[in-house]
């Protein structure tokens, strides 16, 4: 469950990095993070527990999405991150039960977007 634990640990850090979150929500994120970190560090994390932790983060993300003062782009990104964690968690449950390397395929790299060249500065006339 290594990767899913890492990703579950990552969620509160990403959430706390969203600019403009109220003090009340920041406190709630800290409380949930400290409550779950003990479980994550214990090494006895089970799938139902991991799913419950993820569900609590999804709940917090949903609450944040109702706050119009927060940047939409940040919340969209956190939602996608939650989806990635969920996908890994679902896969982990299957992978713990059966090894089948034929289901694992090599992945292609993503084209790196071209950098926008800097606008030349005119000096003098």
């Amino acid at each position, binding site marked *: *469950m*290594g*990767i*899913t634990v*890492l*990703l579950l640990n*990552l969620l509160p*850090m*990403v959430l706390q*990095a*969203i600019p403009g979150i109220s003090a009340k929500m920041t406190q709630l994120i800290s409380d949930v993070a400290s409550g779950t970190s003990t479980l994550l560090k214990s090494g006895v994390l089970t799938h139902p527990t991991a799913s419950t932790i993820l569900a609590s983060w999804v709940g917090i993300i949903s609450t944040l999405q109702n706050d119009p003062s927060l940047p*939409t*782009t*940040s919340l*969209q*990104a*956190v*939602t*996608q*991150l939650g*989806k*990635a*964690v969920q*996908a*890994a968690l*679902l*896969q*982990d449950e*299957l*992978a*713990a*039960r*059966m*090894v*089948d*390397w034929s*289901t*694992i*395929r*090599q*992945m*292609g*790299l*993503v*084209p*790196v*977007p071209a950098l926008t060249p800097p606008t030349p500065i005119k000096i003098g006339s």
Partner: protein
Amino acid sequence: MKKIFAMLVLLVFTVGCAKTVTVPVPGSTGTPDAIAFRVAADAQAALNSIKTWEQCADAQFPVTVVVDGNAQVCDPKAGPFPASAVPLLNSAITAYNDLVAAGKAFHDGTSTDATGLQSLETNLQNNVSAAIGAAGGK
């Protein structure tokens, strides 16, 4: 009576000394194989999810995109994928491909390097964490 008592003591002693037996995961050749597969499978799912987001955003959110030969549905509400996270995503994909190659070789017996496999697992976990953190805005 003494015989029964002795048998009970022996039984309790035997149960008390029983070792925890780890049941091998079906399809695996042993624990290192099972762990490598699990790390690779989890990473594949997480990276596929992030890669789908990147490709959907890059193509301005069509209904579906083809990610590594498979059609994936785009989430029109996903928003832009941060360009700064693309190199980290590629590093994670490279780390994933390295583990897959080594894991398959270990599984079929071409390689016996369990330590190398473990190192590739750690490398992949760190790279996936960095890529997803960057994509999420951390």
